């Protein structure tokens, strides 16, 4: 049973697709199927685009997930009402998503349901915490990577990355893009007493000095760097970027004196929107990026079939990727 045993070791695991239609749902269903008959209690929810769901309600092909009796799931009211399984309602949230409140329920008769979850990282963290109450051992999170999303799957302890021909039908490009994301996922954690405080900060650029003290630089976003150059290095060369880490920011910092000692702290890998070239140029000059939320990559799953019907050689793809990444790679259709 590849990598499923590994999943059992984590309290929460996100399943993240690099692109739509890479086969995230198949991967989730595989895990659920494999764990269905064990004594391991599972819960499932999702984090991702807030608002994305609105279109998806009308789309009939929104993937449904098959759940077994005893599984706990969290989904929106809208999706709960369209469920094709029997479930006992355990809780109802006060807070709303664009699809309504979130229903926590336990499956009493197996079947399919659409899963939508909280729109914010903090809410997801709370939900995962609540799962203890229902005897859940591992919570699976259907995760999306998106610039628009406020939520990040990086809050989970472990992660399974799903990539495939949907991302690129060119094997070389596919491997290169996946390897870059893998590199970002593996960015080391910023270890300090201030991590919780930093996580509370949701905007602007901040400096962290040698003593670990946090200073607001008064720079709203990375776009305003040019006009605020004078403020930038008043405390240190360590910066906490609460929002997106952009190519512009990396390119700007690369040109500044002191690049060798420059450290950028990002919330998590999903906040880094710089392209590979800018990232590499930045690190080559000695700059470092660290993250507040680090998650362990458990496995990579590939789907060699693109939605247009193009099929890559599964064996070759798996082998090349595994060699490049140094972790196990599986074909979701051959599991």
């Amino acid at each position: 049973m590849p990598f499923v045993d590994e999943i059992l070791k984590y309290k929460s695991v996100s399943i993240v697709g690099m692109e739509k239609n890479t086969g995230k749902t198949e991967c989730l269903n595989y895990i659920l199927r494999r764990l269905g008959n064990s004594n391991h209690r599972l819960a499932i929810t999702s984090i991702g685009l807030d608002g994305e769901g609105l279109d998806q309600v009308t789309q009939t092909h929104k993937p449904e997930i098959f759940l077994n009796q005893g599984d706990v799931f969290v989904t929106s009211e809208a999706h709960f009402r369209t469920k094709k399984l029997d479930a006992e309602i355990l809780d109802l949230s006060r807070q709303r998503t664009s699809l309504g409140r979130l229903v926590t329920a336990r499956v009493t008769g197996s079947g399919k349901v659409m899963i939508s979850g909280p729109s914010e990282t903090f809410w997801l963290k709370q939900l995962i915490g609540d799962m203890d109450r229902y005897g859940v051992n591992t919570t699976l999170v259907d995760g999306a990577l998106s610039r628009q999303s406020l939520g990040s799957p990086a809050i989970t302890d472990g992660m399974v990355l799903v990539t495939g021909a949907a991302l690129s039908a060119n094997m070389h490009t596919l491997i290169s893009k996946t390897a870059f994301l893998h590199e970002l996922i593996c960015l080391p954690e910023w270890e300090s007493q201030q991590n919780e405080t930093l996580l509370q900060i949701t905007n602007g650029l901040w400096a962290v000095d040698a003593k670990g003290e946090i200073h607001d630089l008064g720079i709203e976003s990375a776009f305003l760097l040019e006009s605020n150059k004078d403020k930038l290095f008043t405390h240190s060369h360590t910066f906490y970027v609460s929002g997106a880490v952009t190519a512009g920011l990396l390119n700007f910092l690369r040109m500044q004196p002191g690049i060798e000692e420059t450290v950028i702290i990002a919330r998590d890998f999903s906040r880094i929107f710089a392209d590979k070239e800018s990232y590499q140029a930045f690190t080559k000059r000695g700059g470092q990026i660290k993250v507040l939320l680090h998650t362990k990559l458990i496995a990579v799953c590939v789907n060699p079939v693109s939605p247009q019907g193009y099929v890559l050689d599964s064996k070759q793809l798996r082998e090349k990727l595994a060699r490049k990444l140094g972790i196990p790679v599986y074909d979701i259709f051959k599991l």
Partner: protein
Amino acid sequence: MTLANAIHQQNGLRYITGLLQLHSSAGRQRMLSQKFFTDTTGLEKELNLLSGMVERLKDTEYQGAFISIIQGLMQLHDIQGTLNNLDGRNVLDDIELFEIKRFALIADEIGKQLKMLDYNDIKLPSLNDVVELLDPEGNRTAHFFIYAAYSEKLAQLRNKLKAAEDPQSDEAHVLHEKCIELEDSIRQELSAKLWALHSDISLAWQGVAELDFIMARARLAIDHHLVQPKISEEVTTFKGLFHPQVKAVLEQENRTFQPWDISLYPAPCLITGANMAGKTVLLKTLALNQYLFQFGFYVAAASAEMVTVEKIMTGIGDEQSELSGLSSFAAEMLNIQSIIASARAGNKLLVLIDEPARTTNPHEGIAIANALIDLLEKLNVRSLITTHYSGLQTHCRKLRVKGLSFPRNSEPITVANINRYMDYSLMEHSHDEVPREALQIAQILDIDSELIRRAKHYADQNEKNIVEFL
């Protein structure tokens, strides 16, 4: 008028309601819909309910029960939408049935604790029938689905479905459809039974909202040393009147608030005093306390006897929107017009005006102020008016803020220590001269010395001219 409307108009009220420790959205909605009591019987009853709650909150014997009640209130979700559906005799879905069940369990628990308080003014009907209906397995947990216990037939169908080898087979589909049909009819039956219990559920919902609101008012009264006002017919009298917000700010700066003693009759009363003597704060405090009183709160004083009014009308310069496009004088006059119109219409008013006609030339200003006071006198309007004008010829009652008492030692008065030398208390004042301390206060405020020197020169010249003229 509801509290929600008044909060918009009155900053002090916004501050006070912000201090209320409400634990549920039901309580918050109840607070916003609180009405402005003008009938004394209703108000008296409301204040007595509150005093009963204050007594119990102060009694440590009930502490445990209160903690349990608060825990219950905090768990409440807003089920207003579901209650509306129930009221409209709709069939409820599982989520709504779950909401009702959870509410019933929480309300019953709160009801049990309420009994221990021996507080009989809020009635929570027992929702045991609701719980029984939605908890056929007797688990007493707030989970819900269409339990097999509702129907022998459903139990059989579900077992058959479970035993089906291929869940995708036609046979399984047929079974599943039958299950859904049966579940729907059970939802219908449950809903119909709940319709019959609707009034109890609604009463319980209103009851917990009422409880939350009254507990919050009682807590506020205790924490902020508010007092139960006695209802009076003729004269409003405060001893130790204070403004809770100003008091809190001063206390933060280690300064003390000097409370006032004041009585208001159904006639105008004029207040004079130096700048920075707290006249405006006094007007705001009176307005705030009249609102608190008539919304069924305790008031900010050591003791209070108060007359109810139909309307509180102010001209304190912090009205929400000065009528746009008008000069400040025009806006003020229109405000005064609406006060006079309301008084002429026979409304029982409390009128509080800060320096009427201050925005025009002193000559006509005095004339307007005089006329206004005459009119308020004639119409028997309970009103308090501040002024800097000397020579108001009216015969109405006059009060004066005692003002600065200059220190014997040579410590200069500054903005930081002026509070210590200012005596904010009120005294009866018989002649119509107002204190001339503006330049002194300006000096304390460290205003440009040349400006003050020149102003003094002009003031002296004026004085001389008058003397010569006489």
